[in-house]
């Protein structure tokens, strides 16, 4: 019976104090009765493997002991929806806020890139702390068996008026957030708040004419505003799509004008011959030229989509795919 004792002692260790002996005596009586029945059936004492089978059927000690705990779940059904709502607030409000504020402050620091990395780390840590605090609060409320009266005493008429948004009109918040940060980063560089570190050995100069400064700034500020609105109200409206159509056209015109003043950057690299320098400039400016061409194409696609959205239609229909020769079978 050494195996049986070992099994019961393991369970005993995991049981609530004060109830251990009572529970173990009862469980032991049951297991011993099972063993006695089996031995009577076989007409001989049980082999170790047969005893193991009985114990395995009873369950792992961790599982058996856990079933005797008064609390079977950390957060119960009544609190869970509220807990999930709290988590969503952390994900979509607190974390972006910490990130945007942290990065904005980092731009003015002596070492902006380093400070930005730190700000991202701080935002992640802050969000993890918030999730931890939220979880602990929910667990405490669960343990106190707190009755959330507002979940029972509510009026349907008090609910906010939210529109029923079809899937094709929804804007993923992650997309808006990523685009907002991307625009903010570009603007920080464009306005000179963020200096890309240069050494005496490598100097590159922005050769884009000054006349582009305000038009580009206006475009990216508008982009940030639209993405911030989409972050708060993540669905397309006809008005927002109409604004986007104007922005798309403006961006395409601006990008085409930008192509006409190419190349945009000049370099000074210590110890490099003028010929090699020309090659470096050609490669870098060439890559950026290609990037702007791709951007124009991207804005072109957005323009087609936004024109349809502004008319209250889904961005692309099956008819369009069929017209383009894609029958949807692959």
């Amino acid at each position: 019976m050494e195996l049986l004792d070992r099994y019961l002692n393991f369970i005993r260790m995991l049981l609530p104090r004060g109830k251990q002996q009572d529970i173990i005596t009862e469980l032991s009586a049951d297991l011993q009765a099972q063993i006695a029945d089996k031995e009577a059936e076989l007409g001989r004492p049980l082999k170790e493997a047969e005893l193991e089978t009985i114990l395995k059927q009873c369950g792992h000690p961790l599982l058996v002991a856990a079933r005797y705990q008064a609390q079977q779940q950390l957060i119960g059904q009544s609190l869970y929806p509220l807990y999930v709502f709290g988590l969503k607030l952390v994900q979509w409000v607190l974390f972006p806020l910490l990130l945007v504020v942290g990065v904005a402050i980092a731009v003015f620091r002596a070492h902006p890139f380093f400070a930005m990395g730190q700000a991202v780390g701080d935002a992640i840590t802050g969000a993890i702390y918030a999730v931890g605090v939220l979880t602990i609060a929910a667990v405490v409320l669960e343990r106190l068996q707190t009755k959330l009266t507002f979940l029972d005493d509510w009026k349907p008429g008090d609910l906010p008026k939210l529109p029923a948004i079809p899937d094709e009109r929804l804007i993923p918040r992650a997309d808006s957030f990523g685009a907002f940060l991307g625009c903010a980063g570009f603007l920080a560089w464009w306005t000179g708040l963020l200096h890309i570190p240069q050494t005496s050995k490598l100097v590159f100069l922005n050769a884009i004419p000054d006349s582009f400064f305000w038009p580009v700034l206006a475009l990216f500020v508008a982009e940030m505003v639209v993405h911030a609105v989409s972050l708060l109200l993540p669905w397309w409206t006809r008005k927002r799509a109409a604004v986007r159509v104007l922005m798309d056209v403006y961006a395409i015109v601006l990008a085409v004008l930008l192509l006409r003043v190419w190349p945009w950057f000049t370099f000074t690299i210590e110890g490099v011959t003028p010929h090699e320098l020309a090659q470096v400039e050609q490669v870098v400016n060439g890559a950026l030229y290609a990037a702007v061409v791709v951007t124009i194409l991207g804005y072109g696609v957005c323009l087609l989509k936004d024109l349809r959205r502004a008319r209250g239609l889904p961005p692309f229909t099956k008819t369009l795919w069929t017209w383009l020769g894609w029958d949807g079978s692959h």
Partner: protein
Amino acid sequence: MGTEAFENLRLELRRGSLILAVLAELRKEQYGYTLRKALSGHGLAIDEGTLYPLLRRLEAQGLLTSQWREEDRRNKRFYQLSPEGVRILEQLGAEWRAINGSLQQLL
């Protein structure tokens, strides 16, 4: 996947029914092992890891009474319905019959 879904739903369906079966079987005094055997005999097998915590929960709710007694040279804890348990069992039985009647019409 289909088997797993069925198994989960079957367990969920049995969970509530087992409480009713345990209460019904404890109209007469029994200890855990004989109770398990009796339930198993009715086609409602329940493992010891589930039954004993359930018995304690029902006792804590005042639906069962229990006492330790020696039988066959072993200490055993005998359970039986309390007066409150008898009343609740009657109510639950009526509820069960109503649900069963409704389901019979649907299935």
